[in-house]
């Protein structure tokens, strides 16, 4: 096949994407501008409801904040672990990788329900704190935002750790030695050599964790509960219980748009850093 005809190789995937992703997405967009799912007549009511309602806007902000806080929490734990992986011997490296992959081998439903056992009023954390006398009465962990972030940090950790480890592994150890030989401190080497070279992996991890945490319907509804309003739950409720499909479509597009905007911003940040 000539180079000019090579585009044909992408045709099957392009056709599949058009049929199974683009077409439903256009239908979703059309539904959000209709009065009902039959697309009978045009209406901006659903969008007015999303953009003009403080409760829905608060749900958008809650969702974005949850994604951002989870990214920060996973970063805080993943970066030291990835650096340890970089300098560790083969045995410890295997152990870190196993610990990173292990959560992926369990269903997200199982992991989420396990967190009920850990965070509950009579759960592992409260029982331990009560038995040591650190607290006099159980502290609320389940159905709180910090409890949810804690659970999501564990659930999403592999998405941050694996790209970060992959990026760090690509750094030539000779560069670190050269930096040190030229008199740079460890902190300066990390800032000037390791961080710029690990940035693509770091940003990939941030994007993955953000997208996954802000759309984590099961964890948000089971661990977060009904007092924390997030977009995925509202989409499900409007689509499956209330049958208000135009509002469900508008909320779903808002969720997708918000997540895509943050992902695009992270990508732009990466490009700027690469050219800096």
């Amino acid at each position: 096949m000539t180079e000019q005809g090579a585009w044909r190789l992408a045709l099957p995937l392009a056709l599949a994407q058009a049929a199974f992703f683009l077409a439903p997405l256009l239908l979703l967009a059309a539904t959000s501008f209709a009065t009902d799912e039959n697309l009978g007549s045009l209406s901006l009511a659903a969008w007015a409801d999303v953009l003009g309602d403080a409760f829905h806007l608060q749900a958008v902000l809650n969702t974005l904040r949850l994604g951002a806080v989870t990214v920060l929490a996973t970063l805080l734990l993943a970066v030291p672990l990835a650096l340890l992986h970089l300098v560790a011997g083969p045995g410890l490296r295997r152990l870190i990788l196993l610990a990173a992959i292990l959560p992926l081998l369990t269903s997200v439903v199982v992991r989420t329900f396990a967190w009920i056992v850990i965070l509950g009023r009579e759960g592992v954390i409260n029982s331990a704190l009560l038995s040591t006398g650190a607290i006099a009465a159980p502290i609320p962990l389940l159905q709180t935002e910090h409890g949810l972030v804690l659970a999501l940090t564990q659930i999403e950790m592999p998405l941050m750790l694996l790209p970060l480890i992959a990026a760090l592994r690509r750094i030539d150890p000779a560069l670190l030695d050269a930096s040190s030989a030229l008199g740079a401190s460890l902190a300066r080497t990390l800032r000037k050599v390791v961080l710029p070279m690990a940035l693509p992996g770091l940003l990939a991890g941030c994007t993955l964790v953000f997208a996954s945490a802000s759309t984590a319907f099961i964890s948000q509804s089971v661990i977060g509960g009904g007092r924390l309003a997030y977009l995925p739950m509202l989409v499900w409720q409007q689509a499956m219980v209330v049958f208000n499909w135009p509002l469900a479509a508008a909320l779903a597009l808002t969720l997708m748009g918000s997540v895509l905007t943050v992902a695009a911003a992270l990508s732009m940040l990466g490009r700027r850093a690469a050219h800096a």
Partner: protein
Amino acid sequence: MTTLSRRTLMGAALGTLGAAGLPFRAAQAAGSMTAAVYPGGWDEALRAVLAPALKQAHGVDVAFEPLFAVDQIAKARAARGVAPFDVFVLDPGPRVSGMDLKLFEPFDPARLSNRARLPAGYSDEVGAGVAAQVVGIAYNPKKVARPAGWRDLFKPEFAKHLGLTGFGTTFGTISLIEMAKSVGGSEADMEPLFTELRKILSLVPAVAQPAAMPGLFQQGQIDIMYTNTYTVTLLKSRGVDIEFAVPETGAAAFGTTMHIAKGSRNIDAAYQYIDTMISTPVQAALAAPPYSFVPVNTEVKPGADVPMKSIDDLRSFVTHDWTKINPQRPRWIDRFNREMAK
């Protein structure tokens, strides 16, 4: 000249045999069907009891599709009115939605050989009742006193153990309506409910999705919840400290019904499925532990955990008009979301 090899001949022979076998496979397919079933306990019970009984009585194979009632309606709606299964199993709210959306085939109760074993009014032109649910208050007797009624749930000593769930399910909706009535509200006026909920909200340890409630109870996060007798029996069988309290104003009850999906190609099998479901042996097996269904067959006595002696007692229970509830439910769901939000 064309020569016939042994392989060609074998292929032709097998093809002919295969073609001859086609009518046989088609006949087999006519003896099979797909039924929606609630996930969890219902799925487990119907696979263990109903499926073998149906196969034995009518030679029909049934494949189950586990879906909650609202999900069945949503799926049929998404498929433009043609459900991807032959039989619905629904609570009253989704049943009314299904009728409004014309998702059911016309139903002829005369085709049920067990029709006489159902109380009057349990089969009609859209479907047949196959079980009942009794809703009241479940509590952990080792942690809290027995609540006398719905009004008690607003008292701080009970509220600090209470798990709340919204209007997303039938049992949640009717429990909240009964709670509203206990503080001066009604189906037409839910304002007193929200006023009282606002007062206790800071004490309530969980506001959760209905499916999460049993898990939260089991883990000790909550010690009081509104639920049905079926959930209480199931949790009790797994060693959870739980009792069912009939509120002083009476437990609420509703029927679970089955309907043949519009456009079903297995109408005969669907009737046989529903008929077998209401037959005495199947209803008796489902009423016994560990399933503990509330039977609708008049020849079968409800289990010890069900606060009734026969299905006729259901008339004395609190019931609700879903044709009035359904139009208001989206507004209540939205209001509940906003009131609960931190």
